[in-house]
């Protein structure tokens, strides 16, 4: 991996390789997750479907067809209390282009055009296009309810992080988005270029130098003033909260939010990752082998660690009637991990499994790109190999200690039917 400084708070990471048939380039831009989230969320929608050079998406898509079906995508997500907007382009590697076309460089230039040179109307964006993209974003926000797992997770987060920036939806709020003017979005775009922490990540056999120079020239026109991004880590939990809602469903969704006691994203991160994995990661985990396989309570029940916020989220799809049974068993399984009641086999299975999947990231341009672009806010970039070394250095006792610090914070149950009892005690 090669690293280049492009501008203040902007860097480019290149992973040169000719083992793939495609190349990929991603630009990720991070800003604090705050009250301006809705305006920023419109940006990837607006920017990835057109630019001054290709002013509508039919023209843009025809150009992408000419670039051998190159595909462009834009999105917004959160990492800790940062809102990250990103755009990616995947294209065939130059070796497979006909007539010596330089696909990769053309794609990098296209991506830069889309970020720096959008279609404008004076010092703003065209109203009809912004209206169209706002409409699409609102639909995406509202459609979250179609995916009940995601919806229930989001509700749990809203309750658990009510007093923290983490509760802000990175997609924005529907009514806020509706109220945005083209000027609001334009201002958010200018602010993003000026203040975001930015990383451009490239994977493929293309020449890196021209791309570095091109982005340097583009950013040289901007007066950079990167904003500070901080995430709040909460290490003490009062009495766990319980909220239940209903919806006409076939299957109930149980979401349980835990705090890990981590004080920053690197704090005890490797032992915590293994502890959470033994608790509810792979098929050897407590939740899979006991709650699903032995007790036959559900089709899925798993735990995920979000170390950028220091929390663990457990999710399961169960029958309403099994709610108490499932909750009790999930908590019991966590206490078993914290009591050191897991075998040496489980411990080594976890390290092997996590390491194996991390090393496998090296085998697709998309996963390599994601591995590095996910680190855009880190000063020291870790390779997959270095991360695996950290995992392998962890001992059992560290895992037990990590599990002991995991505390239940919030339980959210989306019931399919029946009576709702609110604020029930745990």
């Amino acid at each position, binding site marked *: 991996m090669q690293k280049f400084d492009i501008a203040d708070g902007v860097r480019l990471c290149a992973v040169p390789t000719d083992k793939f*048939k495609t190349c990929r380039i991603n630009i990720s831009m991070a800003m604090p997750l705050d009250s301006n989230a809705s305006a920023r969320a419109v940006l990837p929608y607006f920017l990835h479907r057109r630019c001054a050079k290709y002013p509508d998406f039919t023209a843009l898509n025809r150009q992408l*067809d000419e670039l051998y079906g190159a595909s462009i995508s834009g999105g917004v997500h959160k990492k800790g209390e940062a809102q990250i907007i990103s755009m990616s382009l995947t294209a065939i590697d130059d070796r497979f282009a006909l007539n010596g076309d330089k696909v990769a460089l053309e794609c990098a230039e296209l991506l830069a055009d889309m970020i720096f040179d959008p279609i404008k109307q004076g010092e703003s964006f065209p109203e009809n296009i912004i209206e169209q993209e706002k409409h699409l974003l609102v639909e*995406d926000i509202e459609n979250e309810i*179609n995916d009940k797992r995601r919806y229930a997770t989001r509700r749990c987060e809203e309750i658990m992080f009510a007093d923290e920036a983490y509760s802000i939806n990175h997609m924005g709020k529907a009514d806020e988005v509706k109220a945005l003017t083209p000027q609001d979005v334009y201002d958010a775009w200018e602010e993003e270029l000026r203040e975001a922490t930015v990383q451009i990540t490239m994977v493929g056999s293309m020449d890196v130098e021209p791309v570095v120079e091109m982005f340097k020239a583009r950013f040289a026109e901007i007066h950079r003033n990167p904003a500070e991004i901080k995430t709040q880590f909460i290490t003490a939990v009062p009495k766990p909260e319980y909220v239940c809602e209903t919806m006409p*469903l*076939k*299957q109930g969704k149980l979401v349980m939010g835990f705090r890990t006691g981590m004080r920053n994203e690197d704090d005890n991160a490797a032992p915590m990752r293994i502890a959470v994995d033994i608790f509810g990661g792979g098929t050897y985990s407590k939740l899979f082998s006991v709650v699903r396989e032995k007790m036959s309570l559900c089709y899925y029940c798993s735990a995920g660690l979000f170390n950028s916020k220091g929390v663990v989220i457990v999710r399961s799809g169960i029958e309403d009637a099994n709610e108490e049974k499932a909750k009790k068993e999930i908590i019991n399984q966590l206490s078993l991990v914290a009591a050191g009641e897991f075998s040496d*086999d489980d411990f080594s299975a976890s390290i092997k499994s996590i390491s*194996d999947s991390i*090393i496998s990231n090296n085998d697709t341009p998309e996963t390599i790109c994601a591995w590095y672009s996910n680190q855009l806010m880190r000063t020291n970039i870790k390779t997959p190999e270095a991360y695996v070394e950290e995992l392998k250095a962890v001992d059992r006792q560290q895992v037990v200690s990590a599990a002991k610090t995991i505390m239940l914070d919030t339980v959210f149950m989306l019931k399919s039917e029946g009576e709702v009892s609110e604020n029930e005690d745990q």
Partner: protein
Amino acid sequence: MKISEIRNEQLNDVYFDIDHPSGLKILVMPKAGYESTYAIFATKYGSIDTMIQLEDGSFKQIPEGTAHFLEHKLFESEDLDAFERFAKTGASANAYTSFDRTGYLFSCSANFKKNLEILLDFVQNPYFTQATVEKEQGIIGQEIDMYKDVPDWEVMFNCLRTMYHNLPVRIDIAGTQESIAQISADVLYGCYKNFYNLNNMVLAVAGNTTVEDVIEVADAVLKPVEGKMAQRKIIDEPKEVISDYCEETLSVATPQFMLGFKEHWDTPERTTKEEITMEILMDMLSGSSSELYRRLFDMKLINSGFGAEYFTGFNYSCVLFSGESADPKAVADEIKKEIRKFRENGIDEKTFERTKKKLYGRMIMGMNDVDNIANNMVVSYFADETIFTDFEIYKTVTVDDVKDMLSKTLDENYSVLSVIKPSK
């Protein structure tokens, strides 16, 4: 043992086709520079296989969802189940059941030979008891319920159920609560014997491996069995759909739709050329650079979730357009209008050439990931092809082929609009 090399110069790819003495077809693509390996052991047995052929050639019905149930159960054995064995090696293992096949797979970046041994071994050693079958009815029961809340799953099966009178493709892959209740250990053993003989299966491996390593493990673990490739029964299906419209109410924000065009052919399976020609036609008609796509967007009738698929398999083929829309009927009308326009105006040469260029790129992109490659090898083998067939055939498709395809398909008299409406 016969080993042949299959090569494509333009892609600079090569893989090996091995006729193993056990009767199993083995396909291996070693990939230089890759750290991981993906292996899939698959049988030509999916949810559409609802009948077993008996000795006398007649067919016997089996409960819906049996292929999927069997997939779940094969992971178990008398002592350590397959997941426990893979946990010792660090591989990530899984399985899936589709309409026409079942695949057991793992990917790993270490201990490849051990992992392959586990894969071949557990799939060859079924172990079912009435107690373990009953336990699985609970888990799969929850899986079936989960899908009933997933709108894009429901919109598709409602569409297929309204399109087909008799074909088993109308059945949910996991079956129903009622049908899985009829599954017993005996039923599973019967299906296993019929569909899991090595002559009805294929092993495909891609990534950080060699032909020698794969053969070494295969020699040690594969047990030759009696059996042949299972035959599928051709089922009569009227040309007509059951109804041109169906709807269901679920907790969704925006209505979801699927517009399907049923096809009627004299042969049970579509050729590669037909499939590629159809893909070009669909992209020209409704792809992201088409006029229709633009118009639907401008009318705020679709979002980026809009897409089209040529859905084909043994005995069935249909074109499916799907997405989310405030007004599904208006979308369906626009699609039908565009099809009529295409019929009247003919096929534009320039658009055709651009679409082919895109398709060329997309086919190359499909040759990147080891999981894609291995799954492609399975599908191609069951279709009697190589993974490079598409790449060669696409070059031969002409504008006239597309015109000809258009004249045979997308007939609105045989279409179904399936809609999921929001509850409220």
